[in-house]
């Protein structure tokens, strides 16, 4: 049997996958670009016409585009600063392999598996100003009631809390995998040389998990750009547009204001924003293992 005969069927095995990915990614993407040059409004019965770059001009001139982009960046920034340190800390503690670690790991993973919509609903109940268990607990330690979802700053925190609750396990798992990959002989050698725990952490552990932290950062940036379910349940982007991210704004433009073409232009802009992160991720993930 010749070599070639063995190789050809292998590429064919990917054809069904190609078809599905073409259906949900390739075709929609190019069709989306096409739509962004028309003037489709879902409420209008007029046949769409070609408008060139009008949608892009409108979108780039609209203050909402920039304010929702700013909100996305703020949430991303605070979110990263919250989730990565806590995730690393938990991974370090799990990595000590204390008795019961496996059970703790199973418990700590649970939040990331749960239906985000249901989680959002539960938190919304817990954040309730008068009846919520969170304000009750705060009251017990002598703090004022917070109208969590009523103002921009506190709503930011509420969103970060819920997203962190669901996302920290992901950070923790990836860091844990990176920690497990570090050879124990490195630690032993350092200890023989008389290195202190904090020296080992700073000189060995942190540098060796940095590539993983970079990958996590890229993935998390993309996930914050995608953030939808919890936002939708907790605040719907409100009060007003105070917690509307660029992704949610695209949804609102397309399916609340029914400006499909303008939303498609926003989609293209989001894609362009995602591109550098996408390439950095591909590069960074090659460095891991």
């Amino acid at each position, binding site marked *: 049997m010749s070599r070639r005969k*063995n190789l050809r*069927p292998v*590429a064919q*095995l*990917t054809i*069904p*996958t*190609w078809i*599905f*990915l073409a259906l*949900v990614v*390739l*075709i*929609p993407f190019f*069709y*989306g670009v096409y*739509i962004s040059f028309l003037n489709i409004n879902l409420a209008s019965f007029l046949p769409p016409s070609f408008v060139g770059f009008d949608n892009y001009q409108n979108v780039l001139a609209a203050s909402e585009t920039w304010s929702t982009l700013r909100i996305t960046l703020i949430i991303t920034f605070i979110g990263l600063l919250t989730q990565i340190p806590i995730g690393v800390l*938990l991974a*370090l*503690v799990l990595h*000590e392999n204390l008795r019961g670690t496996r059970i*703790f790991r*199973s418990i*700590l*993973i*649970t*939040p990331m598996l*749960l*239906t*985000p919509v*249901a989680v959002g*609903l*539960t938190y919304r*109940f817990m954040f309730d100003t008068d009846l919520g*268990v969170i304000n009750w607990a705060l009251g017990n330690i002598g703090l004022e009631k917070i109208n969590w979802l009523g103002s921009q700053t506190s709503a930011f925190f509420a969103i970060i809390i819920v997203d962190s*609750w669901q996302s920290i396990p992901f950070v923790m*798992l990836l860091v844990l*995998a990176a920690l497990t990959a570090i050879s124990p002989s490195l630690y032993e050698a350092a200890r023989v040389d008389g290195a202190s*725990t904090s020296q080992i952490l700073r000189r060995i552990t942190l540098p060796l998990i940095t590539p*993983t932290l970079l*990958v*996590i950062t890229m993935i998390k940036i*993309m996930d914050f*750009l*995608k953030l*939808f*379910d919890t936002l*939708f349940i907790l605040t719907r982007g409100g009060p007003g547009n105070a917690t509307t991210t660029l*992704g949610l704004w*695209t949804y609102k433009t397309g*399916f609340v204001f029914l400006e*499909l073409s303008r939303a*498609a232009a926003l989609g293209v802009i*989001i*894609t362009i924003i*995602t591109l550098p992160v*996408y390439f950095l991720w591909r590069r960074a*993930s090659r460095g*891991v*293992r």
Partner: protein
Amino acid sequence: MILKRGLSYTLLFVASFLSLFPLFWTISTSIKDRVDTYSLPPKFFSFAPTLKNYTSLFSLEKFWQIYSNSIIVTLGSTLICLVIGILAAYALARKPRFRGRTSLEGLMIAVRALPAIVLLLPIYKLSSYLGLYDSKLGLILIFAGFNIPFAIWLLMSFIEQIPVEIEESARVDGASTLKMFTRIILPLAAPGLVATGIFVSLLSWNEFLIPVIMAGENAKTLPVLVASFISNRTLDWGPMAAAATVALIPIVLLTVVIQRWLVAGLSSGAVKE
């Protein structure tokens, strides 16, 4: 040791408490009477459990239709992901180089990277031409498309664990590619298929953005129903918690079963193996 042992345990216990409390709170709210739900201080254990919230949830018009929609769409898309995913995963795991490999991997990462809303706007428009709007078939196909990359990444890691030597010796014995695939790869990858199936069905079960855009009254799924409680002005937390519990319980049960493979699944795609 980074922290003192006592401090480590304190941290683990606090984190575990915070991880489980919302789940506990949802379930306990779902079996509370109205009066107990709204009582202050909150009642954690001292209340008489009731199934009232569930009866009112189950008597909702269309509840069972929505529930069966969720199950059908989840099973259908998972099945597609497994059948198609195992083929592609085999190719990607076994052959380092073939035509279109790099573009295929690029597309798979694009699904993970791009916000789904970007793709769903055009998909929404296209599907109304194809008559797939508000249909279970439409949802099954779209869910499958979005979840296939995860299935492939996960299945690849299982296939890579099967020694190549087994296949080589089968080939020497004259087995065809098809025979080798059905007789050797499939049985050996069976645990991987189960784990991947459960993981992918979790993704479908939890999915909200796709059905909220692509489903009207007929194909509505459970997360859309759960979310719809919010838009009612009269917030009634009991039935809401019951709906959330109905969505969450299957997940909790399944994850107990797949504990072993969970870690690989949850980090799939993030790290190149």
